[in-house]
């Protein structure tokens, strides 16, 4: 059995160290109890704080949506849409400048196209075609009959 300078074996040194540590813990038991209690209380309060923060953020989002008129009457909704349409292009330009993408992306060409006008003209064309269809069908039928008569002559 190897012994150190004091004459103690390794196993005996471990036994003495463990005993001293246990004695230190029992001597400082009151401090250990207070620290453990504080940590336990913090561990119990933390989930409540997290839930309260999440509820605050979600409730705040809902309040902002209601307060800005997005969930109100139809006039408020259409006004909000007009404001958003007016605010989005400058916001996009600012963000592009911030990220330095202004020189990279080409400018959007302005297309003179209105979906409302296209829809309205399509409806007018369809209705006018339907209203003229019987007259035109009669005329084409008469032309076909005349052509057949000319062929049989």
């Amino acid at each position, binding site marked *: 059995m190897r012994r150190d300078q004091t004459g103690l074996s390794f196993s005996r040194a471990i036994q003495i160290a463990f005993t001293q540590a246990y004695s230190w813990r029992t001597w400082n038991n009151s401090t250990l109890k207070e620290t453990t209690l504080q940590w336990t209380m913090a561990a119990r309060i933390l989930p409540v704080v997290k839930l309260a923060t999440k509820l605050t953020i*979600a409730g705040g989002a809902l309040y902002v949506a209601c307060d800005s008129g997005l969930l109100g009457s*139809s006039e408020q909704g259409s006004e909000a849409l007009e404001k958003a349409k007016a605010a989005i292009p400058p916001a996009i330009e600012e963000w592009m400048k911030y990220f330095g993408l202004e020189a990279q992306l080409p400018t959007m060409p302005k297309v003179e196209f209105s979906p409302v006008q296209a829809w309205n003209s399509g409806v007018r064309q369809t209705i006018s075609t339907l209203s003229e269809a019987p007259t035109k069908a009669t005329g084409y039928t008469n032309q076909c009959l005349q052509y057949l008569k000319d062929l049989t002559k």
Partner: protein
Amino acid sequence: MADEHGRKWDRCLADTAVKTVTGLAVGVVFSVLLFKRRTWPVSLGSGLGLGMGYANCQHDFRSPYLVHGRMVKDQ
């Protein structure tokens, strides 16, 4: 009369679009924060927005004598 009807349709579609998108956004916030990124709050929010827009449109079309005017404040 026809112009007013057209304006009502414009208002109705714009309002429905805004409410649907708002409901979708609020649903996404609730889903991410409270419901562990599940799909049903998003569906519920967008459905609620669509329903509110439909109800507003219905109210607008069923009230033909209500004129949507604007108040000009004296400066």
